[in-house]
């Protein structure tokens, strides 16, 4: 769905730019300079999910979210923030600078997450970070009716938008955001669809509101 977004990825994310990672990005991602230096093109599949299929199947409402799946195809950790905190809230939304404390917290969270992931890779089911099926089921309670209705509205809105009818799409996208305000996936997508010029610039700030097409 987010075709404009995919174009931005193609245009801006190139190996040549990886070495020039600014400090603001390092702080936001919890990377140190050495880690950023090692960055390269991914060797794993990067999939495009235009319809938010995975989000709906797994109940994902924000990014970055990760799920751990074992060799038998069983979930051993349900969707959860992948080593990210909410340090971005302290970010200066104009300069993208982050206070040292928040940047350090991002780094710490990232390290804990990656260490836990490595522990599971090494020990499998014996890792203390791999959860029992009962715990997975408890944590992955299904969507409420309100959340499911939000998904249905989002789907209708996205479809109408793809068919070139943004005015018909807007009430559905707004209703999806109203019913599921915690879904940043809906919110960002709705913002980008209503104003494609914002693609690539929608930071995770708390003061974003839906904008009308101009």
């Amino acid at each position, binding site marked *: 769905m987010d075709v404009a977004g995919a174009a931005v990825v193609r245009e801006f994310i190139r190996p040549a730019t990886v070495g020039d990672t600014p400090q603001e990005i390092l702080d936001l991602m919890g990377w140190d300079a050495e880690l950023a230096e090692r960055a390269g093109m991914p060797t794993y599949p990067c999939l495009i999910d235009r319809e938010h299929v995975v989000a709906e199947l797994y109940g994902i409402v924000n990014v*970055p979210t990760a799920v751990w799946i074992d060799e038998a195809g069983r979930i051993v950790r349900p969707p959860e923030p992948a080593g990210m905190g909410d340090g971005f809230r302290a970010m200066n939304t104009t300069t993208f600078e982050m206070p040292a404390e928040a940047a350090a917290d991002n780094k710490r969270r990232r390290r804990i997450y990656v260490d836990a992931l490595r522990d599971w890779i090494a020990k499998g089911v014996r890792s203390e970070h791999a959860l029992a099926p009962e715990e997975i089921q408890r944590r992955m309670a*299904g969507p409420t009716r309100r959340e499911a209705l939000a998904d249905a509205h989002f789907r209708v809105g996205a479809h109408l938008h793809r068919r070139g009818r943004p005015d018909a799409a807007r009430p559905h996208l707004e209703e999806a955001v109203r019913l599921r305000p915690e879904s940043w996936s809906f919110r960002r997508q709705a913002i980008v669809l209503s104003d494609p010029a914002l693609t690539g610039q929608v930071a995770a700030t708390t003061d974003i509101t839906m904008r009308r097409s101009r």
Partner: protein
Amino acid sequence: MTTTVLYGTRVTEVPDAATDRDRLWLSFADFEKATGWERKPQGLCLGETCVPIPAGKHWIDERAERIDLAAFAGYLGQSAVADAANGVWGFGPATSPAVLLSAEAPDFTLPDLDGKMHTLADYRGKKVLLYSWASW
């Protein structure tokens, strides 16, 4: 007016659906095409999953060979949104997803940037870190 049915990842144009407020009557053939659910002796089935058709339900009309998809979706616990003015019906996920019955990771197939399709189940035998990010 053609009705567009959005169900799961399917987008189906149905030329002669009979809609009436919260009812969406589809011929059996259109129902199967739009949803992937099939009529079988044991009930309605989606792959290996079958649900019996409760007796006395008014949402299946054997004589006219049609089924009310909105009511069937409600029976499954799925939400429906009808946009009558634009002829679009959208269906949300079931409120009690299959994942509750087991910790098995729901399967999906998606394209990479080059259009090559990848299916989660093809990665059995390996650990998978499913990491979501966005392009905005």
